[in-house]
């Protein structure tokens, strides 16, 4: 990786750190910080959103089952079933993708987001940014793949 690619990846990671901090503080009233190293596993829940336009790529959020359920419980303030757990990581992926994109410079910041999807399995390999986060004893990973990014 060249110095330029490395600094771009560092900036994209920093912008995701800011986004994660804001989203958890605002919606869940808790602190979420970089940390942990969630190992990809075939039974993990994977939420995915794609970017298109001046930004092309994807944002993927990876949770273990129990941690997805805990996220849903924190959103709702009560026990959550699997449907709610899927909705929770789908919603988190949606808000993180939107918040991260908003922090980019135009025209990339105006790129379109797809509807989020949730599946069980391994996330895509070799993302440009792979970051673990921790909140309330729970870990998850965010993986960003950027194929095209156009910024002024």
């Amino acid at each position, binding site marked *: 990786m060249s110095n330029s690619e490395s600094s771009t990846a560092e900036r994209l990671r920093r912008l995701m750190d800011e986004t994660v901090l*804001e*989203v958890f503080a*605002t*919606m869940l009233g808790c602190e979420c910080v970089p940390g942990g190293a969630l190992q990809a596993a075939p039974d993990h829940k994977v939420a995915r959103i794609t970017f298109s336009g001046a930004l092309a790529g994807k944002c993927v959020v990876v949770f273990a089952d129990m941690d997805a359920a805990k996220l*849903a419980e924190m*959103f*709702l*303030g009560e026990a*959550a079933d699997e*449907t*709610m757990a899927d*909705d*929770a990581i*789908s*919603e988190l992926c*949606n*808000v993180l*993708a*939107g*918040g991260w*994109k*908003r922090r980019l410079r135009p025209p990339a*910041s*105006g790129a*379109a*987001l797809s*509807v989020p999807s949730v599946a069980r399995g391994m996330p895509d390999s070799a993302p440009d940014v792979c970051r673990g986060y921790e909140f309330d004893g729970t870990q998850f990973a965010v993986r960003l793949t950027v194929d095209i990014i156009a910024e002024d």
Partner: protein
Amino acid sequence: MRILIVDDSALMRRIVGNALREAELELDEVVEAGNGVEGIAALEKYQNCFDLILCDVHMPALDGVGFLRERAARRLATTPVLMVTADASDPLVERAMAEGARGFIAKPFSAERIRDQALALAETA
């Protein structure tokens, strides 16, 4: 007061509904719909008697813009609509405003913020 929440995410319907129930609104009923088609069905079932509608932008079957168009075509566009989105720069938000939405709330939002915006809009109805 009766409020309609149109969102394909059961989690978001619950979060928004809980925030509104905790607000100082004289809330009689929160009706939920999973997409625009169900939203139109709810308007017809309740004879359009809602004080406020909160509507997601992206939904299967009929999205938020489609819901606004369809309710206008059926002469049901009397209740203020607040769009809910994770992407304020989404062109669909602008189109929703052009189709009659009265405002939008961008995620992430706190329960307090959605209560405040909903209350302000409901008071104008």
